[in-house]
């Protein structure tokens, strides 16, 4: 019964998101950029397919982050703003099931969109590979339709699942959507720089106490930078499956911890 209710809430989030104009706006923007990468690729002699892959994957990641942040911060706060939360919580729906359902629903929405954009990128790459002369194709370090791109998309999906959990924490306790957006973007950007923060003392000559403090923040923040394997894959370099597996495990554990925090915050919340 619990799983069924969680599934219902999740399915409802998915349904709400696919009817949301924001999603279509970001999706259209992303598809446009993926298609536009072909034009950009054509003006960079010899590097065209790499540019298409690079731009395409970066677009998928950015579009995924935008969707996650802008839909994620409203996941709970919108229910409170429009007072639908009163009717929902009057049903036999424990609060933790509501939070978990919301989370899974948005992860499903984001994953479907990321993989749809990846499919669009593959179509563009397939067309480009098909229309390129053989001598050009032979100069590529990786084929145009490289199945290893799927690992990048898998990593982006894991990264966005973690970012969804961050957005949900802010959505659960903040009463301002704008502040939630700012905080979530702040954590995302800091997380992208987390590797530098962890080694702050090595990069910048500062007081050891400050270096330790900044390094601790670097370790505490979600390590979004570690999910980035785009350049290795695009340049045909090896990426260990162990790294991918461990980053997925990291995302699951970190997201589960944040989900626990959201559940705890939401359990204490009152609705005036």
């Amino acid at each position, binding site marked *: 019964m619990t799983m069924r*209710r969680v599934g219902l809430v999740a399915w409802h989030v998915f349904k709400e998101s696919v009817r949301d104009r924001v999603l279509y706006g970001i999706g259209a923007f992303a598809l446009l950029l993926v298609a536009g990468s072909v034009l950009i690729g054509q003006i960079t002699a010899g590097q065209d397919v790499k540019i298409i892959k690079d731009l395409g994957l970066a677009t998928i990641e950015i579009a995924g982050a935008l969707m996650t942040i802008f839909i994620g911060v409203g996941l709970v706060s919108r229910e409170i703003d429009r007072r639908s939360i009163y009717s929902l919580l009057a049903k036999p729906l424990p609060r933790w099931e509501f939070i978990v359902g919301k989370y899974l629903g948005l992860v499903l929405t984001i994953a479907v969109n990321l993989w749809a954009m990846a499919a669009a990128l593959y179509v563009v790459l397939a067309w480009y590979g098909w229309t390129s002369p053989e001598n050009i194709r032979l100069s590529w370090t990786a084929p145009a339709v490289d199945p290893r791109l799927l690992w990048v998309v898998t990593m982006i999906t894991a990264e966005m699942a973690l970012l969804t959990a961050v957005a949900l924490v802010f959505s659960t306790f903040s009463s301002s959507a704008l502040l939630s957006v700012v905080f979530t973007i702040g954590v995302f950007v800091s997380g992208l720089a987390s590797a530098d923060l962890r080694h702050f003392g090595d990069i910048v000559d500062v007081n050891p106490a400050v270096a330790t403090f900044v390094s601790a923040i670097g370790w505490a923040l979600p390590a979004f930078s570690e999910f980035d394997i785009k350049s290795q894959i695009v340049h045909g370099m090896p990426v260990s499956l162990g790294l991918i597996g461990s980053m997925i495990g990291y995302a699951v554990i970190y997201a589960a911890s944040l989900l626990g925090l959201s559940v705890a915050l939401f359990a204490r919340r009152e609705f005036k």
Partner: protein
Amino acid sequence: MATAVSTDRLTKDFTTGFWRPRPHRGLDGLTFEIPAGGVFGLLGPNGAGKSTTLKLLLNLLRPTSGTASVFGLPPGDINAHRRLGFLPEHPTFYDYLTGQELVTYFAGLFGYSPSDCRARATAALDRVGLAGDRTRPIRQYSKGMVQRVGIAQALVNDPELVIFDEPMSGLDPIGRRDVRQLILELRDEGRTVLFSSHILADAELLCSRVGILAKGKLVASGTLADLTSTAGRGWEVVAASVSDALVERLRPRVAKITPIGDGRYSFDLGPTEAPEPLIADLAAAGASLVSAAPLRTTLEDVFMERVR
């Protein structure tokens, strides 16, 4: 008789102010009981604590002190929530869903099978008069239709206890009449209806028992009959074609004379006076009787007296 809802010294403090938070008592030691079956009206002016009470019963708010129970279970207990339906004040729902989709979704949270959910949603929407608008998106609904869909979602689980927060709010006269009729039907089906309102006329028509809140305190509670006694307040006699001389002659015998206009007067008799001699005298002096009615304490009288 079983108890549907009870509270014991239920108190809720809020804090107001950002820089210097100050406590504000929203509900102060509320103790009452609602027996199962019948309609209970929680009345009071705006800010009296009606919605706070309902939210405490549903665990949307947590008490500062005191306790509450629904079907003997603490607020928030899933087993209590299976047996109740709630309509919040000024409800708004997911406007991209149709009425049918919304109520089906809410029905699913009770664990019914998908086909049962659809059937229940259809029946609930039919019941509130939205049969023809089930498949329209809620964003196209009028305020009254949203209120109706809110009532439908509250009834989708066939609840034993129905809690309505200001159910008449935003409804036109026809909508209000329909909701009144629905509440009476729910009562006749043996359900308990608890509703908050500041519209006393509705409460007087519907409630078997009422509680009146003012500034967070319960200032009156009981059956409507107890609170609005007809005994001991005298009579009001209205007559037409009453001459000024007759008015002066009758003045010593009546408690109060109120001119209505065009020779019409209202005569209030005290609790010890019978109306018949006055009616006879009026007739003998050529005046015509318009009406004679016992003076009763209305819910409004009780409300105004206790709330002020």
